[in-house]
């Protein structure tokens, strides 16, 4: 065990090594580690926030979906009502149309009846006169009986 000048040599070496480590190594390594720690912490925090956001978005989506469903149901109901209404209206219109057509036909029929009646009426006096002429076998003054005949046909 010889203590000699090596002691000083070792002390100086030791001091230089520590100084070198302090100046050129330690700060850079610890800084890199700190920065990585920060990055990881940030990443974790961001992940947590994103998860929260996702949950919120999911909830919002559920609400929206529910709303859309109710709206759709409402729309369907409205449409059904509208359809029923349209059908009812169409039915009413059809009835009216039918009535109108029936009335028109009826009026035509009445007209036809009247026309036939008129024709018949104009013919009745002639037939009657003809019949009477044949019965009496002589001519009856048409002018004398004109009024009587007119009355007759008017009664018809």
């Amino acid at each position, binding site marked *: 065990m010889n*203590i000699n000048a090596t002691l000083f040599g070792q002390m100086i070496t030791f001091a230089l090594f520590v100084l070198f480590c302090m100046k050129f190594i330690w700060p850079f390594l610890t800084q890199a580690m700190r920065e990585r720690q920060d990055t990881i912490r940030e990443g974790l925090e961001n992940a947590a926030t994103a998860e929260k956001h996702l949950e919120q978005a999911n909830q919002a989506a559920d609400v929206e979906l529910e709303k859309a469903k109710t709206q759709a149901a409402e729309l369907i109901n409205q449409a059904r009502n509208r359809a029923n209404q349209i059908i009812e209206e169409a039915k009413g219109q059809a009835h009216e149309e039918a009535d109108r057509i029936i009335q028109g036909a009826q009026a035509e029929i009445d007209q036809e009846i009247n026309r036939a009646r008129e024709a018949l009426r104009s013919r009745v006096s002639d037939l009657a006169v003809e019949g009477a002429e044949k019965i009496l076998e002589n001519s009856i003054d048409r002018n004398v009986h004109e009024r009587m005949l007119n009355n007759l046909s008017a009664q018809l």
Partner: protein
Amino acid sequence: MAGDNPTTQEYINHHLTNLVYGKRPDGTWDFAHSSQEITDMGFWAIHVDTMFWSISLGVLFLGIFLLVARRATSGVPGGLQNACEMAVEFVEDNVTQVFGTRPNALIGPLSLTILIWVFLMNLMDLVPVDLIPRAAQLAGVSHFKVVPTTDPNATLGMSIGVFFLVLYYNFKIKGATGFALGLVTHPIPHWSMYWFNFILEMVDMVTKPMSHGLRLFGNLYAGEMIFILIALFPWYAQWPLSLPWALFHILIICLQAFVFMILTIVYLTQAHETGEH
């Protein structure tokens, strides 16, 4: 085996002798060739092998770490950066646990340097005891000790360096008066016992760096000694003895580096503590 058929005594001595470069009594500087010459050189001599290995290993450590620090990324680290960061984180954890979070730019790098440097120097103990000294001998160098931490100059050099730091921080934190008061008022806070306290504190102060350095030296010296003794066995008996001892020694190598670092942190923490303890 060293030399030409040396005796056991010579063999062991050879392994425990440093390569010394120093000032001879006649005033010239040269390598020592015998133990008598080493004694004659006295204090003004240098253990060239201790200096060589400690500086080489320190440069290796700083080189690797510098390489990593230069390219340190805060993104995904590579394997080497990961390893270095593990060491840094381990040191930081220990510093935080013992020293707390007081701002101090020195204690972290100091502890890291001690941990890795001492570990590397201890690690040289696992190199087969005859390998490098024999190679050096073939290259014409008479002695070449491989493990710097088996040289008390290396371990005491570090512990005394730490001791100076302890003194510095004592003055810086407590001030001259605070430091002086601390020396005389503990452990018996009565004026009549101040002289006694002072003696106790002085003993405490001297033994701290001594035990700090000699603990590391003793452990590694003993380990090295046993490797040397095992190397004296016949070749077929060496393996079953040296392997278990080497495996066990891995523990000592790491543990002693760790202990040296922790003690450094503890001493510096004590220097920072102003309250009663």
